[in-house]
């Protein structure tokens, strides 16, 4: 009985401490120190008012004038997002990869053939972006060299020269495309 009373009192104390004070302190500090990042790294339109997305989340692109992100098993839904969770010997996986190969061509790198883990992978590999440069250039009637130059500008190297893989953020690249004159 004594343990039960102590348990309930301690649960109240711990809920206040770790469930209210801690997240509120983090919220206050994060908002003050990193206002952009803590609010979801939103990307705004040219006017700077209307959010067009988050720099960290893929969004659906189907028009040929844009670069396309990696396949998303949840079709880029965010509430919730999803992966295929198909195993390595799945017939469904084999079919999905064949479909993606048809969509992106025989030369498509692996990241364009396979669905991402988050369903919202904001990046593609540099090869996957360069592969799409021809389509984008043709649709927009812009010389391909200019598009490829833009892609190369958007290749992010491994972080601090060490962590992760080189990659291209599709939304940021597409926004820069729209601003191209």
């Amino acid at each position: 009985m004594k343990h039960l009373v102590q348990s309930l009192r301690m649960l109240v104390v711990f809920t206040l401490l770790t469930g209210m004070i801690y997240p509120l302190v983090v919220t206050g500090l994060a908002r003050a120190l990193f206002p952009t990042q803590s609010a979801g790294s939103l990307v705004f339109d040219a006017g700077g008012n209307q959010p067009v997305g988050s720099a960290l989340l893929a969004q659906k692109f189907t028009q040929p004038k844009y670069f396309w992100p990696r396949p998303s098993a949840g079709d880029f839904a965010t509430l919730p997002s999803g992966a295929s969770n198909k195993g390595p010997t799945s017939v469904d996986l084999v079919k999905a990869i064949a479909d993606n190969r048809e969509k992106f061509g025989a030369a498509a790198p692996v990241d364009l053939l396979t669905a991402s883990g988050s369903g919202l992978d904001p990046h593609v590999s540099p090869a996957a972006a360069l592969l799409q440069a021809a389509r984008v250039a043709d649709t927009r009637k812009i010389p391909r060299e200019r598009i490829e130059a833009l892609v190369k500008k958007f290749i992010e190297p491994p972080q601090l020269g060490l962590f992760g893989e080189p990659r291209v953020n599709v939304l940021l690249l597409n926004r820069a495309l729209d601003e191209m004159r």
Partner: protein
Amino acid sequence: MTNARDGLQLALFLAGLLALTPWLGGFMARVFNGERHALSPLLGWAERGIYRLGGVEPAREMSWQNYLGALLIFNVAGCLLLLAQLMTQAWLPLNPAHLPNLPFPLALNTAVSFMTNTNWQAYAGENTMSSLTQMAGLAVHNFTSAATGIAAALALVRGLVRKQTNNLGNFWVDLTRATLYVLLPLSLLFALALAQQGVPQTLGANVDATTLEGATQTIPLGPVASQIAIKQLGTNGGGFYGQNSAHPFENPTPLTNFLEILTIFAIPSALVFMFGAMTGDRRQGWTIWAAMCALFLAGFAVLWWAELQPNPVAGLPVSLEGKEVRFGQFGTALFATVTTDASCGAVNAMHDSFSPLGGLVPLLNMMLGEIIFGGVGAGLYGMLMFVLLTVFIAGLMVGRTPEYLGKKIEAAEIRWAVVAVLAPAVVILLGSAATLLYPEALKSLNNAGPHGLSETLYSYVSAAANNGSAFAGINANTDWFNYTLAVVMFIGRFAIIVPVLAIAGGMARKKASPQSAGTFPTTGATFTGLLLAVVLIVGALTFFPVLSLGPIIEHFLMLQGRAF
């Protein structure tokens, strides 16, 4: 797909772990011995305040029965409160997305899951849990379940170290110190680092964006950074979002990925050092640490290699299905190994889509009992069960009474240790077998053929090991899985904690005899080797048959080009 940077990252990871371990471990030894430490001037008043508010007498020591009673009642009461909160969240504040109450089976599963440090999730947080539930319900259990693990480990260490006493410390004091001096400060620092890299931390509503193609995209926000920090540090693993650390909002950059991996191992590894420090012979800690590190490196090597192999069925030179470009194969393989070594269960890629052998490693890591650094506290006490078995077996081989740290290991201890080692295996195999016999349950599977067996097995292994990761294709939000997995998680947690505390109580009462020339040494490479052998033999004998029917046969069928 491999390059020099991968080797450098691995070296940096090991260096970081080796630097953190004695620093944090030494700090924890001071904290839990009640000595003065760096944070006592800053937070000592808060510690005393918590005792006053909680009605706790910190100087009062507890017997093992008392300690266990406090631990169990605290956990069960917390579980019931969380259950109530989940089933009433629609009527509580801070629910900007107007999410409904959870139905009982899912609420029960989730409450047990978070109470037992498992964080198995049969739901996706972004469309299920309100902001209040996430921070004042789930995240609280991230702290208390981790602190409970540390407390149980401390009681065992005191039982081994102290002589001729019934006193194992005070549960409330251990719980408070673990939270206030270890979990909270580290979480605060890590949460801010995550926020700097792009993990959101808001209390407002989601934001609707208009995409470049004119569609509406809801940006799901909330108090994410504060939760992800403790999710990693407390080896909880319960994501804010359904896709966990694969979601760019939980793990936005390769740097956060590296830090999230390191923070999983930080406390479990430091606790092993702390154990050595508390015994007065640090080699006792490093000997166990070496066995853990060897198992970690072996598992990582196999998983990484397996993920770099081609998939002839799908016609891929290497697979990125279920993985994220920013992490690459290395960052994915390291995360998957570490999260299943420690009973964290956060994932930065979908283990369901790994190659057969790449998926076998996480399974085996968990099957070995979450003792490869393991869960916060749980890894240390779990491994100490194997240490007692090893001492016992070595004693039988040389024909002497087995002793550990100068104390005799007798029949009672070995009986309890065997319960702790075998209980998870029993519920894993019974749970999986029952599921396979129940056609209704098999409708939850997302894959056919041997992979379907692996998917089922993984669920029960993860639950019993209190890991919480999944072969996530399985639809776990059914009555069958919600109820059976809740039972398995409960047994996986407390069928180990009860024996651990019983052993702690029994060992504390014993006399210690001085070491003699005939004492079997429990430090050094020989003992590390013996310990590894015992861990692997127990794990392999128990699980090899079912592994051969799941991932191993799938591997050979994949090489033959078979699909299901």
